[in-house]
């Protein structure tokens, strides 16, 4: 829908009837995030707002609270408000395809942030790879416990990111399961990412196997914390490797304590800045350079990638504290 870029400074694409196009209007970027129930998305939101202020653009942030339909409504509302570009971190990558079509009809470009929007001509994709996160977690657990009983926790079954983490982990675990090196004694999803669910599942698997568990793959720091709680009740905290993700304050504390082995750190600051910068370029009808592309089912989407990092006791100072991501005082 976005036709030949013209050389005017005003956004060319804004044809909608109600929003009168003022000439000196600042660029307005609509951002739709899936949730604020995990620390990382809270940080994402803060980061977006900081970077936007720095670069002098206006942002309108909406939170879908893990609801694909709400996300669509919110994006409709963002379009009604007359934003110039949409940055969407979809709760559900496939369901968000519709939003892309809608935005394009209104002449608005869409950036898919962190999670890929499927089956649609998204204009840009910025990501840490969810599959790789799962793989990293499982690989680390396997490195600690090459044989024995492994428990696999997964996030909410209705959350597509959770499905990808689990898939990534299984990619690594499956060969070992097939070879008989390890036994997957638990493969349970946690409703709404609830730690209480994780707690219940780990308590029960410990009961069934009489504490004979060698490793736990937990998808994020919330469930990891609960799993460690169940281990602690059996005096096993620190003895069984547990993975995590998001580098939450609590998780870093546990890593220092030695009860949680690793967490996966996605440095959202770089990714967020890249997203805003790209959005500004889109708004000004400038091209965005990319090196890679991902196929989302129907289209090859130009992609900017940031690698997730594995944080453990050895590198947390460097990666998390010294990089300014977290204040050391928070760990007291």
């Amino acid at each position, binding site marked *: 829908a976005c036709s030949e870029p013209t050389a005017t400074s005003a956004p060319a694409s804004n044809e909608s009837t109600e929003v009168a196009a003022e000439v000196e209007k600042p660029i307005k970027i609509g951002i739709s995030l899936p949730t604020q129930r995990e620390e990382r998305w809270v940080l994402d939101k803060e980061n977006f707002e900081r970077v936007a202020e720095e670069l002098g653009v206006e942002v309108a942030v909406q939170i879908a609270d893990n609801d694909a339909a709400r996300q669509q409504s919110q994006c*409709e509302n963002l379009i009604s408000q007359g934003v110039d570009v949409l940055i969407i971190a979809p709760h559900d990558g496939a*369901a968000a395809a519709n939003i892309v079509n809608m935005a394009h009809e209104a002449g608005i470009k869409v950036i898919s942030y962190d999670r890929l929007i499927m089956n649609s001509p998204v204009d840009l994709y910025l990501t840490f790879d969810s599959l790789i996160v799962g793989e990293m977690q499982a690989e680390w657990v396997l490195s600690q416990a090459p044989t024995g009983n492994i428990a696999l926790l997964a996030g909410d079954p209705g959350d597509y990111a959770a499905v990808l983490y689990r898939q990534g982990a299984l990619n690594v675990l499956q060969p070992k399961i097939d070879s008989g090196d390890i036994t997957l004694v638990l493969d349970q999803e946690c409703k709404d990412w609830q730690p209480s669910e994780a707690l219940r599942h780990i308590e029960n698997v410990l009961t069934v196997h009489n504490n004979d568990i060698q490793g736990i793959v937990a998808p994020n720091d919330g469930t990891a914390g609960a799993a460690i709680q169940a281990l602690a009740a059996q005096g096993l905290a620190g003895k069984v490797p547990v993975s995590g993700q998001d580098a939450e304050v609590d998780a870093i504390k546990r890593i220092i304590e030695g009860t949680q082995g690793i967490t996966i750190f996605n440095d959202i600051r770089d990714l967020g800045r890249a997203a805003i910068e790209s959005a500004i370029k889109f708004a000004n009808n400038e091209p965005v350079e990319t090196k890679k592309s991902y196929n989302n089912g129907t289209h090859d989407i130009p992609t900017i990638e940031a690698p997730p990092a594995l944080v453990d006791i050895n590198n947390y100072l460097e990666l998390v504290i010294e990089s300014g991501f977290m204040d050391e005082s928070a760990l007291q």
Partner: protein
Amino acid sequence: MSENIENLSLQKEMSDRKGYKEIMLTSISQNLRQYTMIIALFSIWVIFSLLTNGIFLSSRNLSNLFLQMVTIGFLACGMVLVIVATHIDLSVGSVAGTLGAVAAALMSRHGMNPWLAILITLCCGILVGSWHGYWISYKGIPAFIVTLASMTAFKGLTLAITKGATIGEFPVAFKSIGQGYVPTLFFENAAYNDTSIILGIIFVGAFILIDLKKRNNRTKYGLEVLPMPLQVIRMVALSVTIMVPCVIMSSYRGIPYAILLLIAVVVVLTFVSQHTRFGRYIYAIGGNKEAAKLSGVNIKRINFYIFVLMGLLTAVASIVFTGRLNAATTSAGTLFELDAIAACYIGGTSSTGGVGTIFGAIIGALVMASIDNGMSLMNIPIMYQYMIKGAVLIFAVWVDFSTKKKVA
């Protein structure tokens, strides 16, 4: 709308002893219950309009708003009848999710013709409704338990059907049900969608015809009717109320199909609830089950059909919803039930049964959707959105109740 008409017409008996003014006043005060909520709704609109520099009332946003409420609207229509009969249905969200997944799987995985898929989905909805109806009316298990069980079970079924992944991309026919607009008929390039305006005129015509026929009928039986000048005022007022939204929508893209469908459902169900035995029996059961039984009402059968109807409406809602998202997601439908039930209560349905109107429930659904939409337009952080929504809910119902108390 047709609720008010009904009430208005019941007022006609008083007309001989009173002047026009008095007739209108009585009619207004008797309809106040519904009016207060409509007034509340308009107040909410005006406030949001001011706060968003008019974006809220732009034709585009109103179009969005109606589409955003339409799913809950369908569910609320059925839920009113369920609640009026002193039951509850907690499963509508999960069931809608599952049915959406069924339709999606049929089309996307098996390449089925969309119309056939819709037919099958509707049948599945009826089947689910019958299952609920069977346990509730013939086995006497409380609806709360039966539908809670379904709520859980269908969540699982959705996961099983979707295999944990979103099913997406449907044929245009299916998509349009959820997101399409009526096409223009004659004037391709006009700023206004002509079909919408034509439809509006047809609605107005139908209303006037029905009203006149009723008037004739009453005269035939020797019952009193509104004096002619009042009748004319009434018709003009109604015509305006019908035409304004049509014109507004026509200035964006026209009337969405989903809204047309919702209007049809509201009209049909209002008719059913007011003018058929089935409808009256629902209210009788809700008002006094014993009395209804002693009057020879087959309570079990009525209860059964209430749930069948609910199942059917859930299927309709699921189709519209899935079409609108153009995807069936694994967690689709979560918490729909609460929104639908809340819409009913806001719209004046009584929690003890026997009282409630379809029209009220639609107003309730609009109130909820308006609050969500307005706050989202204002980019209010979600945590405050939640808090404000809670506060507005209580406040709106409180205003409604306190005015009602003064009247009744």
